[in-house]
Each structure stands twice: as C-alpha cells, then as structure tokens.
C-alpha cells in the first residue's frame, strides 16, 4: 500500500496541473490573509476607539434628568472575534452596533453589505472561501482519474494480475488523494494560528477552536476524497469522472444552499419590518406606558402599589412613584419585545434548520454552519449578542429609573443626574459561548458529517472489491 501511495504522489508532483493549481490557491490565500489581517486590524482598532469614545460621551454628558439620559442612550458594539479573520460568516450582513435607549429595543444597524455594491454578493475572498470552495476542487483534480487512468491505460488488469489487494489499492488511492490536501490545509491553519497569536489586541483567540476548525475541514476533505475516488471507480472515462465530480461539487456548494434559501423562505417567512413593528406597537398599547399615568394599566399598577405598601396616596410612598412606574413600564415593554424577538428568532432557527435538513444532499451545509459557529461569526452568535445588548439596556434603564425612584423628591421639578453618577453605570461586556457549548449546539451537523464520512467510505470499500 505504501508503494501505491508513493507512486501516486510521485506522479502528482510531476503533474504540472497540480503545481499550477496549488500555486494559484496559495496566492489567493496570501491575498486573503494580507487583506484580511489589514481589515481585521483596522476594525479592531475602530472597535476599541468607538467603545472608549462612546463611553466617554456617556460619562461626560451634561447634567440631565435620568429619563432624558435614558433617551440620550448609549451604544453596544460587537467585538471582532479572532477567528473572524478565518471565516467572515454572516458578519457582513449583520450590523455591529446597537443603540440602547429608553422604550425601544433597536436592531443592530449599518450592516457592511448594505453599504456595498451587489458585487459583494458574489462572495468575499477569505481564507474560508478558498478552503471551503476551492480546496475540494484540488481534491477532484487529483483524484478524478485515480481509477479511470488505470482503465484507460489498460493497467488495471495488470494491477489485478499482480494480486494487489483491491481494498489496499483503494485505500492507497484514497490516501494519495487526501494526503496532499491534508498537508496544504495543515499549512494554512498553522499559518493562521501563528498570525493570530502574534496580532495585537486579538479577542478570544484559542488554538483549541482553531484545531477543531482544522479537524472539521479535514473531515470535509475526507468526504470529498471518498466521493471523488468512488466516482472514478464507477466511471468509464476520465472525462465522465471529472464532469460527474464537478456536478457533485456544484450541487453541494451552490445549488443545495440556494434551493434551501427558497425553501426556508417559503416555509418560514419573516414578517416585514413594518409588520413586526406594528405587532409590537399593538402589544405595547395593551399595557403600561411609563409616561402615561392615565391608562388602565397605570391605574391598576397604582392601586397595587398602594396596597402593597399599605398607604392611601402615592405621595406617602417611601420612594418616588414616577421612577417606579417608569421602570415598570420599561419592564412591560421589554417583555413585549422579548416575546416578539423570540418569535423572530424561532423563525430564524427554523429557517436554519431547513438548511441543515438538506445536509443529507450536501455535506457543505453542515460544514458551513459549523465553521461559522466555531469562528463566532454565525447568526447564532449575533442573536446572543443582541440578547446580551438587550439585557444590558434593561440594566441601564433600571439604573436610571431607580435613580429617579430613590433620589428624586416627589413632585420635584428640574431634578438632574451628574457625571459622577453616569460613571457608575457598569460597562457593556460580551463574551462568546464556550467551544464545548458551540459543539453541543452543533450535534446534528456533526452527526451529518460523520454519516457523510462513513457511508460513502463503506461504498468505496465495497465497490473496490467488485471491480
């Protein structure tokens, strides 16, 4: 078997096409890395500048009523995660800043894609782009004629007459196709790791995550290798083998994900933004508005509060009722938002499930999702970030409303809050989920990849015995 692998590899090295293709890919990787590092640095720098500046603006705002400060608001910025250098995921399509103000839960605004031309829809050259789209092509280029060349040169009968074990032959061909790509991939990941560990201001980089990513991609390549060699066994000529492998590749990486988009859209449609907003407005109207003391809900709250404290009028309460009502109103509104955003997230989860369910047609899909998740550039991560920002917004509202409640005298006009107090508001922090969490969320994807790995491989072994 060793001889088979060595012979194939020797042939490969002598083949000009492999050299040219590898050189082109390495050049592309180089471009992707250099420009990527450049952008990464710039974005990280901008992120930390913006964060500091915004905090400074918050702390040094002029003295004002706490509720006005709540409207003045502040921003939550999404940090750049280390592995976003490797896989941009959906970051281009999600904004990275959320305005946090009173009464409203805002969406992350200003996605990069909405500032770009439609050229961006062709995709962006990143390390992941080369790895997930182009590396499989190298495998096909190496392996499409693994068997067909033996058929065409009539050397297959020779091989058989030399009593080469068919399974060993298959494994040898498989390894010879897989090893070069494994080597290239290892090179890419080690370089990425070295670059990331030497960059300054990198957030949340771990070699462990990178290794898992490496492992994920090699699994994908193993799947593609198996399929390519298998197709080569089945095909009568190299041309047919090549075309069939390429059709499979197009089906995996383009057609299936795109068809999934249309399925997801028609089975789990998103509401339009205005529909979403009007549903929220409708629900909000049913409950407490912190500004409106005359509504039914406000009167109800008043009665309950008076009862709780055993007093007859709000002026007898041990705190400022206006602040208390404002906070209760905020809490009610937050519930409304939470309800509707959860519905929205459920739709997104269902849509993503539609994609993942098509994993049985394409191993590309589970790999794509897993890669984004590990790199912290997925939709899932973005949802966690928006949830964290919302939790922080509520914390901020409480901080401000309770200042009214505890410090403003009843009926006092012109009460203000100053810089010393603004400084006391805790800072927004966001930590991404742990790798173990991410992996356990991706169980289905991992299962599909495992199936893709095992089933065709069994097919390969069985077919090898038959030919």
């Amino acid at each position, binding site marked *: 078997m060793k001889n088979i692998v060595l012979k194939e590899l020797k042939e490969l090295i002598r083949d000009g096409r492999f050299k040219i293709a590898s050189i082109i890919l390495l050049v592309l990787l180089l471009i992707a890395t250099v420009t990527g590092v*450049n952008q990464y640095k710039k974005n990280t720098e901008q992120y930390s500048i913006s964060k500091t500046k915004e905090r400074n603006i918050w702390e040094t705002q002029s003295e004002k009523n706490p509720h006005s400060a709540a409207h003045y608001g502040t921003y939550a910025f999404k940090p750049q995660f280390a592995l976003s250098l490797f896989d941009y995921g959906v970051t281009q399509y999600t904004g990275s800043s959320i305005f946090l103000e009173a009464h409203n839960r805002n969406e992350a605004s200003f996605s*990069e894609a909405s500032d770009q031309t439609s050229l961006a829809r062709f*995709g*962006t050259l990143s390390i992941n782009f080369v790895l997930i789209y*182009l590396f499989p092509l190298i495998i096909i280029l190496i392996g499409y004629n693994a068997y067909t060349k033996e058929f065409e040169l009539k050397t297959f009968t020779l091989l058989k007459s030399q009593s080469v074990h068919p399974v060993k032959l298959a494994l040898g061909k498989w390894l010879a196709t897989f090893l070069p790509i494994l080597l290239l991939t290892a090179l890419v990941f080690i370089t990425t790791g070295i670059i990331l560990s030497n960059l300054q201001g990198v957030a949340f980089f771990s070699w462990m995550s990178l290794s898992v990513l490496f492992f994920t991609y090699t699994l994908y390549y193993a799947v593609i290798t198996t399929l390519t060699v298998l197709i080569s066994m089945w095909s009568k000529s190299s041309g047919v083998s090549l*075309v069939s492998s390429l059709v499979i590749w197009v089906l995996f990486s383009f057609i299936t994900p795109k068809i999934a988009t249309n399925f997801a859209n028609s089975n789990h449609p998103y509401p339009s933004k205005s529909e979403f907003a*009007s549903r929220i407005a409708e629900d909000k109207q049913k409950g407490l508005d912190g500004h409106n003391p005359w509504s039914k809900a406000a009167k109800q709250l008043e009665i309950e509060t008076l009862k709780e404290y055993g007093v007859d009028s709000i002026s007898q309460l041990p705190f400022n009722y206006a602040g208390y009502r404002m906070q209760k109103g905020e809490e009610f509104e937050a519930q409304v938002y939470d309800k509707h955003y959860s519905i929205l997230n459920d739709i997104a989860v269902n849509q993503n499930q539609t994609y993942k369910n098509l994993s049985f047609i394409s191993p590309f899909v589970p790999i794509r999702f897993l890669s984004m998740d590990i790199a912290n550039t997925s939709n899932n991560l973005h949802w966690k970030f928006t949830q964290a920002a919302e939790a922080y917004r509520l914390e901020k509202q409480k901080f401000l409303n309770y200042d009214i409640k505890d410090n403003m005298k009843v009926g006092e006009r012109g009460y203000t809050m100053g810089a010393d107090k603004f400084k006391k508001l805790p800072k927004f922090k966001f930590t991404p989920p742990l790798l173990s969490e991410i992996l356990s969320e991706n169980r289905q994807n991992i299962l599909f990849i495992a199936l893709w790995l095992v089933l065709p491989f069994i097919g390969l072994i069985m077919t090898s015995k038959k030919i």
Partner: protein
Amino acid sequence: MFSNNLLYEIKLLTRSKWLLILLVSIAMLFAFATFNGKKNVDKRLNDITVVKKELQKRDSVLVETLKVFEAGKKPDMPYWQKPNEPMTVGYQYPRLAIMKPQELSFLATGQSDMYTHFKSPKVYGNNFALDYSEMVNPVQLLFGNFDLAFVIIYILPLLIITFTYNILSKEKELGTLKLLGAQPIAIMSWLLQKLAIRYVIITLLTWIIVLLTMLLFSVNALAQVTNLIGLFLIIAAYVLFWFVAAFIVNVKINNSSKNALALIGVWLLLVMVIPATINQIGSALYPTPSRLKMINEIRLIKKENEEKQNEIMNDYLRTHPELAQNNDEQRFGFWHNYFASEKVMEEKTKPLLNDYDIQLKKQQHLISTFKYISPAILMQQALNNISGTSEKHYNDYKKQVFEFSVRWRNYLVPMLFKNEKFTLEDYSSMPQFNYENRIKNEVWFNFIALTLISLLLFFVLGSKHLKDKSAKNLFL
C-alpha cells in the same frame, strides 16, 4: 458546404442524448428559478398589501374621527391623538412610500432581499437617516437565492462548456480530423461553422425556454418588450463569450480532458475567484467609510449641540414632543421651538452624513469600474438593472423617500403655523408618494461591452489560428 455541415450537426445532435439532456436541464433549472423568483416577488407584493391594508385601517379611523370633529362635536381624547391637529396627522398618520417591484423583478433578487420596500416618513424625526434594511435572516443573504440570474450567470456557462469542450479534440482523438482535412473545407471554417450552429441552437433554446417559463409563471412580463429584447440580447452576448472561450481552448489545447479542465478553470476564475478577489481587494484598497466612526462623530455633534438645543427647548419635551402642552398658545411656541431645535441638529449632522454618502458613492463607483474584468459581473449588473433590484435603484428609492418627506413636512407645517386645523378636505389632497424607476437601464451598454470583449478575445487570441488555414498545428 455549410448546409452539409449544418445537416450533419443537426443529425448528430438529434441522435446523441446531449441535446436532450441540455434541453431538459435548461428547462428545469429555468422553470424552477423563475418560479422561485416569482415567489419572492409575490412575498414582496404581499408585504406591500399588508402595510397598505394597515394604512387603510388607520385612515378609516382618521376619517371617522375627522367627521366627528367636523360635525362640531368634541371627542374626549388627549391633544396628541386629535387628528384635526396637523402634527398628529404628520406623525401618527404618515403616508406610505412604496417601492413596487418591476415586472421583471423575478429575474434577479439583486439587493431586494436586504432592503425594505416601504417607508413612512414622518413629519418630524430624522428623515435623512432612515434605516432601510429589511428583516432578514443573514444566512439567507450569505447563501443567496436560486433565481434566474444565478442560473444564467453560473449554470448556463457550465452547460455550454459540456456542449463545446471537445468539439475539435474529439475529431482528433477519434482520428477523424485527418479525414476532415481531406474535405473541401478549411478546418478552421468547419470549426467556426460548427460552433456557430451550436451557438445559435443554445441561444435560441435559452430564449424559447425563458419565454415559455415566463408564459407559465409571469405573463405580465411579456408586455415589457424593450426590457425583454435587452434581456435576450444580453443573454446572447454572454453565451457568445463562453463560445469564444470554448473556441480558443479548443484550438489552443486540443485535448478533451485538458480542454474540460481549462474551461472549468476559466469558469471558476471568472464566476467565482475574480469577483470575490475584486471584492476583497477593492474593499481593502478603497474601504467603505467606517460606520462606527460615523456613529462616534454624530454622537459628539449631538453632545456638543445639546446645550444649544436646551436653550431653545427642554430636553424632556424634545424626546417626547407628543406630550406638549394642551394649550393652543403654548403649543404654537412649542412646535416653533421644536423645529428650531431639530434644525440645529440637522444642520450639524447633515453635512457629516452627506460627506459619508459622497465617500460611499465614490467607493462604490471605484469598485464598479472593475466590472469589465469579468463578464459574470457585467452580466449580474445588467440583470439587476433590468429587474430594478440593483443598489442604484435602492439608493434612488431612498432619495425619492427623502424628497417625499420634505413634501410631507412642507404640506403640514405651514398649517401648524397658520393655526389651521386638518380637515376632511385636506385628507383628500394629501401628497402621495409614487415610486418612479429613474435609473437608466444600461443593458444596451452592457450588451455592447460584453460583445466587444468577446470579439476582442476572439480576434486577439484566435488570430494566429484563424490565419492558419491549413490548420497544421491542430494535427499535432
């Protein structure tokens, strides 16, 4: 000789299964893509109907209440809900600015999955910095849609490649090339005739299938004669490009499997690698101005002008203008101050946003000059343009909405300052938004560019072989 060649070609094609496979795959892919595109447009129309209905519902309340007021009654409602106040109408009953899909929008999703198609600019607030993004799962944007544009740009070339990659090399490999050489026709003319026949077949097939699928899913599109002609021409030019590529590869390499690899390589390069690389290098060299930086700058301006605004108006009321005093006299002053304080902010932030916009446009313009490097990019732009889903269309829509918001404000604010009430008569004379597709359809230009590129390639790379009538090197 041409008629012989034609006859032979037709016989060959009808007897081989290739033509059938090709026909079936083009038909299925086009039908499915058209169906999907239509579905997306239907969703867009459906969303529009929903918001329109909602507006009608609100409007009927408005009309009813106005009738009550005009009957001289005084319903018990707080000031900020009274619809005879122009500001209430301006804020709570804004008009809808709808961007209707074009008849051919189903062709290409373009940017339509990212942006909203309706907006309600209000009488106060930041109408020059509205958010136009639509709610969408970013994963969908990442993977994209299976629409006609995808089939035409990505898949059609692959079908052409399978149809043409071995046109000459096959003869050589079968040993019939020498026989051909003995015929009274130059090999080059024979090859060109053969390619031309296949070109006409594929182009006609594609046209017919496009027409049929439209007939099936979107009959109205057939009325768009000029756009359809544009579409057909641009498809013909794109197909031509791939035939030229096939010709060059056939005469230069002339070995079936190497031909296939070379053509796939060209496809990869033009459809995937070059666009993605341009996109990445372009945004590295000419980055879009940072939005985070812009946020910082706007916040700073707001902070600096806060005091100026405070002098004009209390910050509490500024954030809640609907809570203004009930009293007529105070109200007049209130709105006067409100607009004055808003103006302070607008005057300061607008130049910044404008600068940002100019920078962005410059960047987009620079990037778009790269489109000539790949016919796939040219094709994408042409299809987006025909569909009315390009970024230009959305930028223009934003502009139209802003223009409308100015009209809306100018219609109501004078009423306020003249202390007039909003009446039923005013309701029927309110300004209405009408989206107009003001973007020049550059499909002719794209068509000419694409054809020129193809011809240039044909003559420059193929000239040596075209002159070589005996085609000696083809036999090697």
